[in-house]
């Protein structure tokens, strides 16, 4: 991608220098080709973003015209205990769940990269749960997590453990959803597997010559070499995790006792059940800021641990 941008720079440098007929017609073609996206950007992104900022400063229930309230919604939000509860739930789900999913995906990918026989079969099996998503999966897991007749607790009973009441207990409901999210680890695993297969073999050979152990090779060769993929997976997982909705809505509707009240679920309730459109818009902007802050943080830290090919290691 870096290469692509470099080419672009070189080409567009001379653009205004010599406007020729062919350049002009090429530019017109360009604008025509991207016009669907450009129009969509205005109608569905830029316009709504501006309008959303305005709405967040109003009280609006869809029936009567928006009523200007200034920063009231933001002050109200900071004092709303359910906002803090939903932030807590979402933060636990993200900061506990994302590292678990990323590490697990990497471990499975490393195992599959060990010249395992039947690797394609294992890859298919581990990826299979990532193919399905949404309501059907949520319902399936409600049944698996059923305290009396569910698969998980009967498996635990086999080894003599009395399983908790999972989704029905406020202490375990969120944890149960994190366990459930581990089922979909396959998508990230595939990304890691592709990255592992792209690690230059000569690096391992060099490490062998120096007598490095398996663990040392993993730590000093593999992990740094695949760090761009780790970075990508981490950012995408965090962004996705903050926007979780379906599980919370379908499986527990935020309960028991708000223990699975995800932030977007609370936003949805305000917008489409209580018709507090202004307040919900303010909630959306707070979510936006949190996601941007987390992304920026990972981005900032990436200088310390992400190595790109061709870059000198310090």
């Amino acid at each position, binding site marked *: *991608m870096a290469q692509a*941008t470099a080419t672009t720079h070189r*080409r*567009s440098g001379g653009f205004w220098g010599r406007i020729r007929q062919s350049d002009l017609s090429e*530019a017109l*073609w*360009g*604008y*025509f*080709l*991207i016009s*669907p*996206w*450009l129009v*969509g*950007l205005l109608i*569905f992104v830029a*316009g*709504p*973003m501006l309008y959303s900022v305005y709405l967040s400063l109003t009280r609006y229930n*869809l029936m009567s015209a928006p009523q200007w309230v200034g920063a009231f919604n933001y002050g109200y939000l900071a004092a709303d205990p359910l906002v803090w509860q939903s932030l807590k739930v979402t933060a636990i789900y993200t900061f506990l769940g994302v590292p678990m999913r990323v590490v697990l995906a990497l471990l499975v990918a490393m*195992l599959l990269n*060990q010249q*395992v026989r039947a690797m394609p079969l*294992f890859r*298919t099996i581990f*990826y299979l*749960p990532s193919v*399905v*998503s949404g*309501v*059907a*999966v949520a*319902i399936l897991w409600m*049944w*698996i997590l059923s305290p009396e*007749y569910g*698969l998980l607790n*009967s498996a635990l*009973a086999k080894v003599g453990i009395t399983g908790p009441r999972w989704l029905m207990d406020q202490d375990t409901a969120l944890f149960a959803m994190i366990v459930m999210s581990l*089922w979909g680890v*396959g*998508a990230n695993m*595939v*990304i890691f*597997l*592709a990255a592992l297969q*792209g690690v230059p073999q000569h690096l391992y050979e060099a490490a062998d010559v120096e007598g490095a152990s398996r663990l040392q090779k993993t730590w000093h060769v593999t992990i740094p070499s695949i760090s*761009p*993929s780790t970075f*990508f*997976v981490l950012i995408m997982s965090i962004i996705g995790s903050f*926007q979780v*909705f379906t599980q919370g809505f*379908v499986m527990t509707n935020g309960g028991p006792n708000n223990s699975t009240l995800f932030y977007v679920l609370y936003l949805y309730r305000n917008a489409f059940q209580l018709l507090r*459109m202004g307040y919900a818009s303010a909630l959306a*902007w707070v*979510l*936006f800021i949190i996601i*941007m802050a987390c992304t920026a943080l990972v981005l900032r830290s990436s200088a310390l641990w992400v190595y790109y090919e061709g870059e000198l290691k310090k």
Partner: protein
Amino acid sequence: MTTASNAEGLGRPTGSAVARLSALRRRHSVQRTVWRALVYVILLAGSVFMLAPYVWMLSTALKSPAATFTFPPTWIPEPVVWANFTEALEAMQFPILLKNTLQVTVYALAGGLLTSTMVAYGFARTRFPGRNVLFLVLLATMMLPSQVTMIPVYIIYKNLGWVDTLRPLWVGSLFGGGAFYIFLMRQFFMTLPRELDEAAAMDGCGTVAVLWRILLPLSKPALATVAIFSFMGHWNDFMTPLIYVNSIPKMTLALGLHIFRGTYQTQWNYLMAASLVVMLPCLILFFLAQNYFIQGIALTGMKA
């Protein structure tokens, strides 16, 4: 191998270096065998965790109501009740839901493929002022949480009188199909050599002909990936229909399944049968086009 090095060790005079080497080799090979066994054990355990839910779902979908609630549960349904499927599908009004879902997925797929290809081609192959900035904007919109625009977009559709119709579920796809698909196609086009375009232009191909006759036939893997992701995304989408649709004749399968669960709370045999049917097209698609799934995912991860 172990025996070979033993024999070698015995055949020679008691050279301590040779003996040490063979011992080292033996230990190394034992270590490797143990390691391999360990890898397989972990992979098999993981596979059970991955597959058991599917088997459990199928098993429950074929059980009688009484057999559903036994402890410990059984894997083999006794008796096998195939009627669960027909009864569950009838109760959830499956034909209407399927028709709606197909309509949404097909419209969104067609519109998304067409426009994302067009836009990606524009970004990959034409020069125009502001292109780099606009491409950065495109990348930035991939990061934008959809909740920020959700409410104003709802108000737009509401003012158009499109609430409780299927249109809000697919019309957005006509505008490039989503930044992610444009990005994917653009990255793929960038890998195709520009000489192809130039040669075609020399032969008198116009801008559209280059895309249509030269690039698209070479882009089948990327097109397939975009098509699959778009299909899966719209098939499984829950929040959009939840927001826009409120009557059963307009519902998609994802939303219909949720409503169905509300009515049949604890009839797990019905619920599993219905869930299985809703998942099935995605599973079949995966087995038909497995490589495109894997490639597509890996491709998105490689971009960084």
